[in-house]
């Protein structure tokens, strides 16, 4: 009895945050995280790379996107050397234009992550909206959207991205190509990737819309859009978020692939894929650092994000628990 009194007396404002944190720390997710060293490592790598990308302008010794800062005379400096001409120190060496490879990786992963996140958000928003509509309304809308999705699924997504990229660029004047390269990349990768979100959301929506709470909402006369966004949407988001995490790794790789093929970011604003494309010319000539370090960075980034996504899917899926 006295215990009960004590509890009610405690200020709810002060008690709630530690309670929430404690609940979180005691949750299955954290339990699972702590028990898997690979996941802990992946988290650390991901966080380090996110931080490196985020704070690139403060960490990097050089802005590799600003042509004024490149010293051509320092081209091909090996790792851990100081230039005789300019006195610049190159931690991971410099490339054919005198671009510091370490700075280029930091700035390049910035682009890779930006494109990855934005493309996933774009695909997620588009796919969720179309999936909700198809699942909730049904009828010809459902048929139309899902047939388009089926057709698009038959093409590899990188092929779709190449196609969309080419079409968008065709409509833009040439002088804008370099400026909008990043937006075009985001749209191309996003458009090539919305289908899986739409399918997941449609399926979940069809299940949810038959449930009692939705029928109850209907009976009290709520408009469709309110039912959709306030009642159904929160309940179908979980699979979408899991797909999104794995999709991030795929989008990062898609961006790298496009840039590697020479249709993504230009060599003057290199992303990780562009750096690898440029570096591969020096594979046999002894300047291994130009290719190796960006390649390792991309591998680490894609692998750790993918591992996190896989882990999250397992944890959030009640059937696998």
């Amino acid at each position, binding site marked *: 009895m006295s215990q009960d009194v004590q509890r009610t007396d405690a200020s709810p404002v002060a008690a709630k945050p530690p309670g929430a944190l404690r609940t979180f720390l005691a949750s299955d997710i954290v339990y699972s995280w702590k028990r898997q060293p690979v996941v802990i490592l992946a988290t650390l790598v991901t966080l380090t790379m996110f931080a490196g990308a985020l704070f690139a302008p403060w960490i990097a010794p050089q802005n590799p996107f600003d042509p004024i800062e490149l010293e*051509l005379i320092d081209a091909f400096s090996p790792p851990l050397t100081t230039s005789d001409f300019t006195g610049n120190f190159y931690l991971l060496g410099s490339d054919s234009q005198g671009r510091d490879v370490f700075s280029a990786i930091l700035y390049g992963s910035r682009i890779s992550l930006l494109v990855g996140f934005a493309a996933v958000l774009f695909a997620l928003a588009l796919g969720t909206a179309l999936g909700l509509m198809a699942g909730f309304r049904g009828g010809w809308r459902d048929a139309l959207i899902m047939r388009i999705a089926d057709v698009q699924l038959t093409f590899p997504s990188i092929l779709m991205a190449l196609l969309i990229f080419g079409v968008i660029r065709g409509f833009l004047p040439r002088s804008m190509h370099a400026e909008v390269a990043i937006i075009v990349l985001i749209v191309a990768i996003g458009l090539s990737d919305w289908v899986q979100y739409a399918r997941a959301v449609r399926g979940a929506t069809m299940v949810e819309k038959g449930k009692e709470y939705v029928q109850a909402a209907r009976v009290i006369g709520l408009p469709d859009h309110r039912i959709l966004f306030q009642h159904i949407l929160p309940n179908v988001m979980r699979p979408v978020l899991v797909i999104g995490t794995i999709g991030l790794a795929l989008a990062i790789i898609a961006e790298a692939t496009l840039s590697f093929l020479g249709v993504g970011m230009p060599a003057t604003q290199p992303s990780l894929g562009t750096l690898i494309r440029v570096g591969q010319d020096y594979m046999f000539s002894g300047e291994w650092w130009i290719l190796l370090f960006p390649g390792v960075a991309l591998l680490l980034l894609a692998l750790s994000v993918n591992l996190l996504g896989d882990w999250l899917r397992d944890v959030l899926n009640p059937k696998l628990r």
Partner: protein
Amino acid sequence: MLRKTLLAGAVAAAMVASAAHAETLRWTRSADGLTLDPHSQNEGPTHALNHQIFDTLVYQDMDVEYQPGLATEWYVHEDDPHVWVFKIREGVTFHEGQALTADDVVFSLNRARHENADMRGLLTSIKEVRAADDTTVHVETHDPNPLLPNNFTNLFIMSRAWAEEHGVEEPQNYAAGEETYAVRNANGTGPFRVVSREPDVRTVLERNDDYWGIDHYPMEISELIFTPIESAATRVAALLSGEVDLLQETPVQDIERLGNAPGLKNEQGAENRTIFLGMDLGSAELRTADTDDNPFADRRVREAIDLAVDQSTIQVAVMRGNSQPAGMIAPPFVNGYSEELDAVLPADIGRAQELMAEAGYGDGFRVTLQCPNDRYVNDEQICQAVVSMLARIGITVDLVAQTRSLHFAELAREEYDFYMLGWGVPTMDSEYVFNYLYHTKAGDRGSWNFTGYSDERVDELTVAMGQETDIEARNAMIEEAWQIVHDEIVYIPIHHQMLTWSMRDDIDFKVQSENTPHFKYLKFND
């Protein structure tokens, strides 16, 4: 054991014996020929491929000496200095069996003068071509042209009957993207015939055993497989792994490695090609710039660009020494070359910034630079270096580097403000440069002058060079013209290219400064 050795010996002997008769050479370079239509494009890799399939009246051998091809002799007509006489080789047949006649030569020369033909720029001095008899062709020029045969070294001879049969009497209109029968099929008189062709992938040629020169040249290759490989690393890997036997354009970063690789060797020499940047200085307004006028029209801006571009650093850092910084668009072995004009201005950023400010562009401007990425040695790298050099004088350059078929097609449609181009002088005479690059773009002349540059005196001199028979007076004209375009800074020269070919070390083949291999000369050392 003994039997085994004997057997192995016999097999080896059989292999050697058959190798002498059937030698395949697998050849690669960065770029494919743009078309098999021999008159449509005047472009290096296109001519290099077509030289294996077709013949010209006169050609430049591996030492760039002029040699008789389908013409056995040529001279100015005794009675009329306007007429060049070409004696046509007898007993020559095309790959599909038609006999070569003077009429085929007349047809080919006229076809190359058609408005679709890029080759027409070499033939502006011609008034009429006629067959005097079955083995004699008379070429009449408007004015006496002492150097006419020099213009024929890439002028391939086709069969009239074949062209009429396939409806290709007119050359392909390349700029319009036209596709004709002659683009993928060829019927020449050359040392090799086409077995199959997939553009940009693989072209298979076989020895023409009925070749008129079969006993005259080594002709040791029975099958020639040409696989263009765009990526430098892939090209080098192909040679290192034995997938190809001869690599025509060795990337500068791999020269050392390939020279040291067992079983491989490099052959090097100066190339007849100068790399430079062109600017649209004629338009009132640029297409890609953020100004509403044309900064390139101001000579001070062009001088500032010339001062900002540091050719020596490009030579050291981008080309690893495998180039010669240039001040004029003609390599040293071309008539009219001047060491004084070819000297490179040392980079001077301070002076360049002053000039920009004087011209009213102290805050700089923005413009797009167009580059090929698979045509010249390190073309994209050079352009990137230029981007960073021009940034220092406030010019923000957006770089577009793309494959050469797109680059040249867009350049030909005059869509570019600022571009990279390379130029060789197959005639070994400056007139060729003025005719294509400096003469006002009009009619047959100035067809590669995309700068909008037009100077009355230069036009006058260009025309006069083609007619003057007095060598001294002619050289004075060439000198005057070079001085004018040099002072005007019409182009920004970068460097003269050096050539490296890498190959199996049992191949006996030297580089040719036109970068045009004639595989009929190739020998295998035993």
